């Protein structure tokens, strides 16, 4: 598609697509990054390596851009975030290394599978863990337990199964470094399902961690020449603007319907990525 477009046309179309991706990502809480790579590769015919580089940059933009709103609310847990970032950053470096050795078809197939999981995870509403759980030894040692604001005042919670959560976070880091995405779905899985952290805390802490995880692999991508300024520019500006607009209209939006629509779109893109990967076209 891009072969007929000149630079100005290409930039504007990519910026518009990224804007929509960023807005949907912010409205549904899935992040814009998951659709940027399929959008660039499947629709605009961009090489997957350039697409991953541009996506990674946009992931940092949305994470850091949204942090102010999240942090003010007082939900995120700095200790949980920082402790788990050891796992995600080491994972991200491993993933970025791996990206240099794997064939792009394999990367496309892994991408499709992760996208399918994200679409599936988006249909599940998270529930808070039952109250009155006993404290966990490792979590106590690491001072991970905390409290968060609710309608009935501050509520304290105990963090569970730290080693499992840490392991899943390493995986989230590898996927983030390999695919140039935020891996928000895996991060929330680790914190919500494994560590039994209340969902408001896990979603905000996850956002907080995504930027740091992406920064760990960004340096490697930059030096490999995956980050093209001409392509990353419209993607980053588009996703960022879309995410900001999405956050503004979020209170009045019909999020449930949007989530389903976005989930279906993601699933379709995922299947197409896997198909093209198997055919060796990506």
């Amino acid at each position, binding site marked *: 598609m891009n072969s007929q477009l000149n630079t100005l046309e290409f930039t504007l179309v990519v910026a518009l697509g990224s804007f929509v991706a960023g807005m949907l990502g912010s409205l549904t809480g899935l992040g814009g990054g998951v659709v940027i790579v399929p959008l660039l590769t499947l629709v605009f015919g961009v090489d997957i390596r350039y697409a991953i580089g541009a996506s990674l940059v946009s992931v940092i933009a949305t994470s850091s851009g949204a942090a102010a709103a999240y942090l003010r609310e007082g939900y995120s847990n*700095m200790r949980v975030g920082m402790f788990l970032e050891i796992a995600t950053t080491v994972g991200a470096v491993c993933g970025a290394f791996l990206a240099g050795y794997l064939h792009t078809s394999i990367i496309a197939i892994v991408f499709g599978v992760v996208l399918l999981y994200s679409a599936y995870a988006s249909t599940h509403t998270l529930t808070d863990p039952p109250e009155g759980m006993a404290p966990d030894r490792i979590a106590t040692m690491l001072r991970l337990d905390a409290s968060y604001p609710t309608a009935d005042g501050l509520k304290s919670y105990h963090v569970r199964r730290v080693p499992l959560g840490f392991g899943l976070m390493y995986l989230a880091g590898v996927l983030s470094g390999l695919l140039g995405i935020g891996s928000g779905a895996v991060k929330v899985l680790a914190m919500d399902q494994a560590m039994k952290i209340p969902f408001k805390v896990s979603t905000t802490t996850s956002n907080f961690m995504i930027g740091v995880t992406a920064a760990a692999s960004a340096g490697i991508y930059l030096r490999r020449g995956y980050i093209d300024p001409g392509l990353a*520019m419209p993607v980053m500006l588009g996703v960022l603007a879309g995410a900001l607009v999405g956050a503004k209209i979020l209170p009045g939006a019909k999020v449930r319907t949007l989530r389903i629509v976005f989930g279906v779109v993601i699933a379709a893109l995922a299947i197409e990525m896997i198909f093209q990967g198997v055919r060796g076209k990506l």
Partner: protein
Amino acid sequence: MTGLDRDAAVGGKVDDKSVEIFLGKLLRWGVLLAALVVFVGGVWFLAKSYDVEQNYRTFRGEPADLRAVPMIVRQAIALRPLGLIQFGLLLLIATPVARVLFSVLGFALERDWMYVILTLLVLALLVYTLTSGAGT
């Protein structure tokens, strides 16, 4: 940190919450600055080469002067449009690094030395991947 220490810290305004609010503002300004630099570089780039045909279909990799931090800074100072965009992207990548750096200070103010060390580990890894030749 004991309960008493924590209360004292809250009274002295050095708690997680005030550190977090400061960090949030820092990140937002960092992102806005980065976006501004990328935008200026982008408009300039488009003004100069809007009618060039683009080809991202085949991966060639970026030229050396858009890959390494010192070269990018030099290109930006020389006011090359692509160098400016790349410099804006570097500023963006630096925002989470700054967040980690300030978290070290935040934990130090709380006298939580275990987390000072854990956070320094993350910081060291980030600085290493950004400045060394790792992965190429």
